[in-house]
């Protein structure tokens, strides 16, 4: 076989594999949404997952939000002071946090922390026959395992993102005003004046959609784990990588779409 044929075959296999995975992810998403309405929500499971995803992720998300806001404010101050634009630092930090940095960084962290945990837990259950045991006991695994994780992440992601925004903007204020001596009144006035409610809405919509992406990809990977302990490691890595890349690609299209929809006038 020639080199060209070999490469074509590899590429074809890669494309087919990606299409198959994407198809599986969309089918699981459809099944999850259908199961939400078909079966009763398991509140105990949902609350347990919300505790793990929402409460236990707070430290990492707040730290990320705080230092992102602080670093961004410092970088902007270094550039803007050369043009005497210090009063524009506030809205710049605030808009950047709302539209991009807040939702993207917060959800990338969630993909790493929560997506990995979901994929690892589900794949361990899969290879130790616990998923089959659920089915043997007459319980639909998507309803029992996927729906609570999906709902918990989709509800928690926007809340965590909102918290990251608040800490990021707050720390940006602290760095600019308290450390670099920018006028606090101007800073805050301009921040409120130029940060639109739509900017916050963009952050929350993005976080919600990223939550859907992370939960669906992680659960799909976990529920389709190949046999063996090596499969768990591979599945977990793939879940985090696939969710993170998908999140970044979708972020571009969401940015274009949401700007077109919300700022068309």
């Amino acid at each position, binding site marked *: 076989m020639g080199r060209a044929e070999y490469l074509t075959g590899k590429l074809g296999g890669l494309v087919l594999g990606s299409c198959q995975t994407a198809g599986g992810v969309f089918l699981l998403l459809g099944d999850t949404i259908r199961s939400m309405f078909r079966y009763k929500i398991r509140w105990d499971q949902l609350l347990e997952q919300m505790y793990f995803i929402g409460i236990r992720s707070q430290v990492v998300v707040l730290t990320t939000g705080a230092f992102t806001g602080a670093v961004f404010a410092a970088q902007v101050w270094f550039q803007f002071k050369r043009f005497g634009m210090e009063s524009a630092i506030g809205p710049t930090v605030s808009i950047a946090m709302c539209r991009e940095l807040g939702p993207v960084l917060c959800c990338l962290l969630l993909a790493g922390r929560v997506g990995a945990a979901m994929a690892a837990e589900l794949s361990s259950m899969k290879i130790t*026959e*616990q998923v*089959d045991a*659920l089915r043997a*006991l007459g319980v639909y695994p998507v309803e029992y395992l996927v729906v609570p994780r999906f709902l918990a992440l989709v509800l928690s992601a926007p809340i965590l993102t909102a918290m990251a925004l608040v800490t990021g903007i707050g720390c940006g204020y602290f760095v600019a005003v308290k450390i670099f001596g920018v006028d606090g009144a101007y800073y805050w006035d301009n921040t409120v004046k130029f940060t639109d409610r739509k900017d916050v809405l963009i952050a929350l919509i993005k976080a919600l959609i990223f939550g859907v992406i992370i939960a669906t990809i992680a659960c799909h990977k976990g529920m389709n784990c190949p046999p063996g302990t090596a499969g768990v490691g591979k599945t977990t890595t793939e879940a985090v990588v696939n969710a993170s890349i998908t999140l970044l690609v979708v972020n571009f299209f969401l940015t274009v779409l949401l700007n077109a929809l919300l700022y068309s006038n």
Partner: protein
Amino acid sequence: MLKLQGIEKKLGGQAVLRGVNLQVGQGERVVVIGRSGCGKSVMLRIIMGLLPSDAGVVIFEGTKLTGLSEEDWNPYRRKIGMLFQGAALFDSLSVFENLAFPLREAGEKNEKVLGEKVAEALKIVSLSGTERKMPAELSGGMKKRAALARAIIRKPDLMLYDEPTTGLDPIVADSINRLILHLGEILGMASIVVTHDMVSARMVGDRIAYLHEGKIYFEGTPEQVDRCEDPLVRDFVRGHAEGTGVTG
């Protein structure tokens, strides 16, 4: 009670089952033996609806189960219990919660009733007092017995055992075999036991079926299997590698 007709299954392009026919009567214990990888566990998974068959039908208590959707399978799954090879206890739940799980799913909410039923099931498998333990704190034999208690807690009509004694020392394996016999007697349920442990097969089987190359090759009572002069059956039963294509 259970009838398998012409069950076929391919896995990874390889034919694993090529037309399995098997019948299990009320209260009967059928042991399916065969070499590793011959499709015994696949057959159990098809009976339980965990894997779809490529051809053939599964008839349980007069109802054709083949082709049912996942949700339509569930009422029948509640009448069939299954002991998995690795026990498959939910490792995030205590022994009590594992055993109470099928009852809660069936709608039982009264904690007193749940406690009584769990205690009763644990007593049958000689695990009284382990309610609060987590599966990770149990030995292999205890895990199997706890899983067995979970499987029988809804008093199924048919029990499927996937390699119940594999990986257990002879004493614990014997206790599991006795338990299988005891459960059959007190609950009157039929069972299919998949194993390659001939001691277990002789002890618990009313009838033994030898699965070879995807089909039931030989079927008979334990005595008939022991007297069988067919080289394939004889070598398997006596544990000889000659004639099987497996030699050192």
